[in-house]
């Protein structure tokens, strides 16, 4: 079981590559922020899998803080940093 948990944690870590690509590519700021949200959720899953595989109960607390605080950056973006007119398209 430990092997399966570690393997799945690694697979989830590798899926973050897709999130990185989207964060780099955009094109709108909302897309980049979405990528960070994916980072947050995937990291929660990775932490929970590691917690079980390594037998470290404290990692569940880390995952819980993750789950709660991932929303704060997104709210800061929506409430403050999102420009009113959509100008941020990458010139391609």
């Amino acid at each position, binding site marked *: 079981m*430990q*092997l399966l948990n*570690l*393997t799945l*944690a*690694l697979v989830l*870590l*590798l899926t*973050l590559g897709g*999130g*990185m690509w989207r*964060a*780099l590519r*955009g094109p709108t*700021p909302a897309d*980049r*922020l979405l*990528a*960070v949200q994916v*980072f*947050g959720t995937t*990291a929660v899953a*990775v*932490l929970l899998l*590691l917690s079980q595989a390594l037998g*470290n*109960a*404290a*990692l569940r*607390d*880390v995952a*819980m*803080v*993750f789950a*709660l*605080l*991932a*929303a*704060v*950056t997104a*709210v*800061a*973006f*929506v*409430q*403050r*940093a999102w*420009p009113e007119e959509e*100008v*941020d398209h990458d010139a391609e």
Partner: protein
Amino acid sequence: MDALTLLPWIFDGVTGLALLLLASWALASPRLFTGIVMFVAFGLMMSIAWVRLDAPDIALAEVAIGAGLTGALLLAALARLTAAQAAQESASQSAKRKRTLRLFQWAPALLLAMVAAGLAYAVQSLPPDSAGLSADVAANIARSGVSNPVTAVLLNFRGYDTLLEILVLLLALISVWTLGGLSPQRTVPPGPVLDVLTRVLTPVLLLLSAYLLWVGARSPGGAFQAAAVLAAAGVLLLLAGWRPQPRFTGIPLRLVLVAGPVLFLAFSLVTIATGRNLMEYPPPRAGVLIFLLEAAATLSIGVTLVALFLGERPPDKEGQ
């Protein structure tokens, strides 16, 4: 080599590579916004690295601060720059500096490659095994009043570090307030969904903060992590449009801000006056004393971080 020893290696390798990539993109991306997004992702990846280094206490602090506070701080600051100021970077680097830059970009790159090689050599030449101070900590942990070694170091063995740190935080806030007002911030009415989200998340965050404070005595957690979660609750409230009433932002706010520093200072004075070492706890009551100091520190650090996010002195009753 079987799979169970190989897998952690691949995991560490991917984590390290991702850290380096995210850091480079955070600093090299053409847009500031992309840079900040990458920096937040970098912070999240750091917390996985902490977990791999057996440092769940640091992972908690990094998650609470990296995921919650730093991103909100940077985005709020970016929002205060006008589009022109945010784009200045690319404009000024284009025409007039281009020739000089091309020449001078190689010089620091070369120099830094040498710095990197030197540091890497220094790290590699360190002995592969070193227990550091862990034996001393383990020998004295029974007398410290707590069973989590990191909390024991933070509050007991090196309590003066924590004392100075909360003074540094207070100093940072005083400096920010001294700089004066900022341009007014665009405020968006929160709307029903954000309103409900804030109402649900704030009590849960407060509960989690109290839980981390309490559990810090024996497992990962403690005053700083609890304070960061508390500050995240405050930042969420500010983002949803809540402002403290003026009658709370005068004396009451300042009392909360100095509660932690004053309690720490009073305790250190008492320990000196009674002939002990600075911040040396009497072992039978160490657990209770540490909890009291931590509770005050959590409150003060949390409120200080929220005030730092606000960025200017909130208007109080006298209308200042």
